[in-house]
């Protein structure tokens, strides 16, 4: 059993004292971030990246991924206790979780969320271990044309799955792709769009864009309508799910896990999409659909399982293909590259310790989360009461010093302020920043692969459609675009995002 050997290798890596410590630190930080509204995982991971440069790559990645899936847990705590999803993937959990809390079942809802997430985390760890190797093997057969088409497919998926206007999402991808081209062109050595600023010659660091847009832009937006939060359901009564509850949540948890795992693997997918989709599915198949929105325990179990599964399986395309499916994965790729590791199909054979160590650490991290979260829920609930007006100046301090320490450059701090302004304006205009960040990361790769593909075909564009795998991927991309443009699907899509 090769998979068992691999997992054993991963376990021995993840179980080292240092890595256990970073995993624990990651999930605690992640939970805190998930609990604190107005601080998303993208901005936080960007903020903490510079602090991980000095760590060994395995420890750095273990901690960063701990933050990511830890945030899903924390997000559900606030969603249930105060009807405030701390994190976008917990939006649907608030629908039924908060209603349960109002009925005095806060403890039961929290336990359901934790157990469903843990189950999903366990299953998706196995899914990762099973699916990543064959995918990497397939990817090794890819030529430049296939890579180009794969990236196009990924970008189209991020557009299709973005909420709001499709046209604007396409615009944002293109905007991001263009931004990614700033810097020296590797083929000709010519500086492009640098406006003769020497600091721009190496291009713009993605951390600056992420912190500016997701950190500062979001802060300014949050200042628009402030209100002091109050803890509505302050008493968490310890109601462990009973036998009937376990029966009720078993099937939704399994369905949520499977759906979440599948959606996480898709380019453009991830935790948020998974939780929305799982909730809609449960509403359709459940016998007591009427209970949904009124405190149905299935409405907590399914999306919580799905978002955790999706968060974990979204590592598959990142690790095996080097292609990010969401902004957090884009940051992870950045973290790997800074550590001198090129994510891609070769990572599994060249860095097996890193690869399997990260996967194994996810299961351990999920275990930590269950053990930590249920007894400490009172402590997390206290954290919700930190007022935002004291939180955001502190976030700014971390952003400013963090960005400076990337290259020890003050210019980068100015640039971050600039992206903060850009980010705020784009948010105001309902232009989603996530597709932009994906485009930004993918831009240089997309150009490089297009160049190579066209060089090999002597400038013949048909290379993208005559090679079968490439053709299929482009076809899927076009089909996805056409499908969302169909009026019937369009209405459904609007409806699906309405609950946001």
């Amino acid at each position, binding site marked *: 059993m090769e998979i068992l050997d691999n997992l054993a290798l991963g376990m021995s890596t993840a179980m080292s004292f240092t890595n256990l410590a970073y995993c624990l630190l990651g999930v605690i930080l992640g939970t805190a971030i998930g609990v604190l509204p107005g601080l998303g995982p993208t901005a936080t991971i960007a903020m903490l990246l510079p602090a991980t440069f000095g760590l060994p790559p395995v420890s750095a990645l273990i901690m960063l991924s701990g933050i990511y899936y830890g945030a899903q847990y924390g997000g559900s705590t606030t969603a249930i206790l105060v009807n405030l999803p701390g994190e976008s993937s917990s939006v649907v959990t608030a629908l039924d979780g908060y209603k349960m809390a109002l009925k005095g079942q806060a403890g039961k809802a929290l336990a359901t969320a934790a157990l469903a997430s843990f189950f999903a985390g366990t299953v998706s760890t196995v899914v990762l271990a099973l699916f990543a190797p064959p995918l990497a093997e397939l990817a090794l057969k890819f030529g430049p044309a296939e890579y180009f088409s794969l990236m196009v497919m990924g970008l189209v998926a991020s557009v299709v799955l973005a909420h709001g206007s499709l*046209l604007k999402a396409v*615009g944002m991808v293109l905007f991001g792709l*263009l931004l990614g081209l700033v810097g020296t062109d590797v083929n000709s050595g010519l500086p492009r769009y640098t406006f003769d600023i020497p600091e721009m010659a190496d291009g713009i660091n993605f951390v600056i864009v992420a912190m500016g847009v997701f950190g500062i832009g979001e802060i300014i937006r949050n*200042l628009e309508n*402030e209100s002091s939060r109050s803890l509505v359901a302050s008493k968490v009564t310890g109601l462990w799910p009973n036998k009937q509850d376990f029966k009720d949540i078993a099937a939704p948890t399994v369905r949520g896990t499977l759906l979440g795992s599948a959606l996480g693997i898709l380019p453009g997918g991830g935790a948020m999409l998974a939780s929305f989709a799982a909730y809609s599915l449960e509403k359709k198949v459940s016998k007591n659909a009427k209970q949904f929105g009124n405190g149905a325990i299935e409405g907590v179990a399914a999306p919580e399982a799905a978002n955790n599964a999706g968060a974990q399986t979204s590592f598959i395309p990142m690790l095996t293909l080097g292609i990010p499916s969401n902004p957090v994965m884009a940051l992870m790729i950045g973290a790997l590259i800074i550590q001198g590791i090129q994510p891609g199909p070769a990572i599994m054979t060249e860095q097996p310790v890193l690869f399997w160590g990260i996967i194994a650490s996810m299961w351990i991290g999920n275990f930590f989360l269950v053990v930590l979260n249920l007894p400490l829920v009172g402590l997390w609930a206290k954290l919700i009461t930190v007022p935002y007006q004291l939180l955001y100046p*502190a976030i*700014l301090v971390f952003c400013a*010093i963090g960005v400076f*320490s990337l290259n020890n450059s003050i210019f980068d701090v100015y640039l971050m302020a600039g992206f903060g302004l850009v980010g705020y304006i784009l948010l105001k205009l309902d232009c989603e920043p996530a597709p932009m960040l994906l485009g930004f990361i993918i831009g240089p790769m997309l*150009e490089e692969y297009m160049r190579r593909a066209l060089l090999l075909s002597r400038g013949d564009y048909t290379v993208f459609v005559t090679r079968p795998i490439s053709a299929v991927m482009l076809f899927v991309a076009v089909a996805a675009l056409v499908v969302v443009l169909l009026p019937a699907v369009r209405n459904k899509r609007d409806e699906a995002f309405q609950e946001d």
Partner: protein
Amino acid sequence: MKLAFRSSKDLWSGLIFLVVGLAAVIIGQDYGMGTSNRMGPAYFPTVLGSLLAVIGLFTMARALVIGSEAVGQLAWKGMALVLGSVLLFAALAQNAGLLVALPLLVFVSAMGSSLFKPLPAALLAIGMTVFSSLIFVRGLGVPLRNIGAWFGG
């Protein structure tokens, strides 16, 4: 129509896309197009820029035909104070030192909130300064001085 333009989300987004796209194409003309066989440095940006400009035009046209939501109030005060505090930090961090730049960053940005109260903000400023100077400068060795060149640091 003029009034609609002033406040319409889609018209503004479209306009921004159009301007960025055209700028990318125009600036890119200096770089050399090459052929599709050997793409020059201008090839890819020109394609992207043109596409973005077209998307911009479509977005604007759609907004004019179907109409679109109004932008709504900008948080001018929050925006000015948050961005201003970051710029202030950047300007002062090296020459004046962190003991000046950090408290200003915290306090000025905190003023952007409608729930701002001087005392908690001042305490936060002191706390964050002590914390950052210990963790980042002493602990992690970020090359910033507590007291900058202006004060003989």
